[in-house]
């Protein structure tokens, strides 16, 4: 008796909890509203089944609980009922799968006019590389990485010279323009995760992965790492600011390009050598 009432309480209580609790997703900031819609659809289909099954169970317990003289009904199977239930379940499942796959098709189809931004993960920091005026990113390789070439950009690739490098700092992107994030890691797995974008994808050393979004509102959002990447995993944070074109142009013009970073590094090196040369004769005295 109590069991049946508790089951009813849990079934209905879960629905009430779902409606009144304050915890729900953050306001979306990308074009992936379809994802939210698919979740809501899945919710109602599966939620209905959950409540129906539990209430049916509770009803059986109330109705068929043992009492003197009761004997169970003997019915090994019921083909018709079993076929009906199979068909209905298949329809329900198809009803969730079909819209899901349609949205997935959009997710894996990157618009041709999407601009590329590289996200480079390392333990435990986010770095970004944006193409310069040529609109293309230079090639990278692990063997080119050193203290002055953090990203491992190929110094001989002309496309890479004007690449804009953001090392461990915030990323700015333009509102309303589709962006293809190219994801790359120089050490372990990471995952570029901005809850408001809904999209996410792992960064895998040795390969370049991707996903695309179109930001639909301005604001500054947290970037988290969503793939366990060692002891500093929870501290691997960054932020991304979505802004209008004018503000973006102003921001990007203030950032350093690969060429400038290399030149500065060369300058430092020469100064250092010069200083050493000056020191040497004095040391002889």
């Amino acid at each position: 008796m109590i069991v049946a009432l508790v089951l009813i309480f849990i079934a209905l209580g879960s629905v009430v909890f779902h409606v009144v609790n304050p915890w729900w997703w953050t306001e979306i900031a990308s074009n992936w509203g379809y994802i939210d819609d698919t979740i809501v659809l899945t919710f109602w289909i599966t939620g209905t089944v959950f409540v129906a099954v539990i209430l049916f169970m509770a009803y059986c317990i109330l109705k068929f609980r043992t009492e003197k003289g009761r004997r169970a009904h003997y019915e090994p199977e019921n083909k018709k009922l079993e076929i009906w239930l199979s068909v209905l379940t298949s329809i329900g499942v198809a009803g969730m799968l079909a819209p899901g796959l349609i949205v997935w098709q959009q997710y894996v189809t990157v618009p041709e006019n999407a601009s590329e931004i590289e996200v480079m993960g390392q333990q435990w920091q986010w770095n970004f590389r944006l193409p310069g005026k040529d609109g293309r990113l230079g090639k990278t390789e692990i063997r080119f990485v050193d203290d002055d070439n953090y990203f491992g950009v190929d110094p001989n690739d002309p496309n890479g010279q004007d690449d804009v490098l953001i090392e461990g700092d915030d990323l700015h992107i333009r509102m309303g323009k589709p962006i293809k994030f190219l994801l790359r890691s120089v050490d372990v797995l990471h995952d570029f995760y901005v809850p408001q974008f809904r999209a996410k994808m792992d960064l895998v050393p040795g390969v370049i992965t991707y996903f695309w979004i179109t930001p639909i509102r301005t604001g500054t959002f947290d970037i988290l790492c969503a793939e366990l990447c060692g002891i500093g995993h929870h501290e691997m944070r960054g932020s991304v600011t979505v802004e209008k074109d004018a503000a973006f142009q102003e921001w990007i013009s203030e950032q350093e390009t690969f060429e400038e970073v290399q030149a500065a590094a060369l300058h430092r090196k020469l100064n250092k050598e010069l200083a050493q040369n000056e020191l040497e004769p004095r040391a002889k005295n």
Partner: protein
Amino acid sequence: MTETTSPEDDIVPPQEVPEMDLYHPHSFLTRWIFSQDAKVIAIQYSLVAISIGMVALVLSWLMRLQLGFPDSFDFIDAADYYQFITMHGMIMVVYLLTALFLGGFGNYLIPLMVGARDMVFPYINMLSFWIYLLAVLVLVSSFFVPGGPTGAGWTLYPPQAILSGTPGQEFGIILMLASLMLFIVGFTMGGLNYVVTILQARARGMTLMRMPLTIWGIFIATVLALFAFPALFVASLMMMFDKILETSFFMPAMIEFGEKMSYGGGSPILFQHLFWFFGHPEVYIVALPAFGIVSDLLSVNARKNIFGYRMMVWAIVGIGALAFVVWAHHMYVSGMNPYFGFFFATTTLIIAVPTALKVYNWVLTLWRGNIHLTLPMLFALAFILTFVNGGITGLFLGNVIVDIPLSDTMFVVAHFHMVMGVAPIMVIFGAIYHWYPLLTGRMLHNGMGQFHFWVTFLGAYAIYFPMHYLGFIGVPRRYFELGETTFIPDSAHDLNAFITVAALVVGFAQLVFLFNLFWSRRNGIVAERNPWKATTLEWQTEHMPPTHGNFGKDLPIVYRWAYDFSVPGAESDFIPQNMATKDVKLAEGMTVADLKAEKT
């Protein structure tokens, strides 16, 4: 089903395999320690599994303390936290659930329920346990080596699992991999035994389609494990080589904190494929025995045949087969070819159909039954509720596009705990309350059992149901602390604290259960011969508890399926599997022709 025989005739195929000889122990050592009796091995397996499970329980308290009350516990740092979650996960999935369902319940129930004297290879069966024990000891030893156990997460993803940014990368990870390989060697010995015994040593008349669903569940789960574990073995061995010999199976060219490494050309994603080729069937290795056992608990306590037995058998077989073609749904955000998403989302949602049918058949078994709300029944009902709840969230995560925002959040943690933690453990408890009298001759204490049931069931739901909503907010899993964010409200921290309190309470209720296990051994009410009035063979032995060799001088002959409950025409509301039709006591005024038992 066409019948050509008269109603009195039972269909009993002839005996095909001769009886085997048993090794009879001569000393305490060979009777209780190096025993070849599957029932003793079962208890050995279960005691070790429950002991190591207690370690995992304590680890879960520690990690919940950190999540619920960050900054309050100085003795937990980030490295500790990642080690806790890793060891908790691996112990629960492999060393507790797999070992208990197959090594524990499998060993005890298979020979008894199919009507065999023992497993077919008793010596190999004994070795299986000792290698399992060795695997557990190697795992435990990793707590005491410099650097401690691995903190790579139970999925052990390279490259981080063997690089210096991860705790336990010196020795912990090596011991973890070694322990897993030992476990697989030990399991394979036991697993071959289970399969061969079921296929070869069944009593006369025990056709496959007369077997109790408990045996079907354990059977198919074992077949799955025999196919799936080799993938984990290979992955562990390759990672061991990458770690010790600096091969590059899973390691591409990389930088480790500014230093170029000597690795190159390997693929981290390859490891994930191998891991989940094992890891997804593993879910069903745990779930299928639970499906089988719960079917029998429901049937016995509703005094009604399981509804749609043949459909239930084929659903188990079908789920088992499909379990091998869904693995990459764990990898939707791994960076694998995105077009895989179409295939794996489709197969994953297809598997929901046979699974849903099983749920329908369980609840339809209650319909027009004669429901006895015993403790095993309460746990079986709690299983249905938590399994349906955890199963439907699987439809979220299996549908590739819906998985994208939820992947790697607390939603995933809530989902898999509900579906492969809480639900199967409800069945384990129900099964222990059910079969304890067979093992000991005494009943478990009902009062303690009721307390244990209500706290565990309601508490576990209170832990995991709200946890899904942390995932909706976007709270990531495997975070030592959430720190400052703009999107996680303060109320989410309160919810985390609430979940921690609930987890502690549920954890302590398990101590009551353990106490009950020991207390009732001597003080429990002496059990009747067949206290639940079950039809299956394990309750029809000459002695209770059954002795070595299980059955008396003669093995039982099986005349019917395991579900002849409340058969019209019979006086009793159950007919044991080994009772011939001519021996069935008829109800007043009935003739044998009125007996409507299923002829299978």
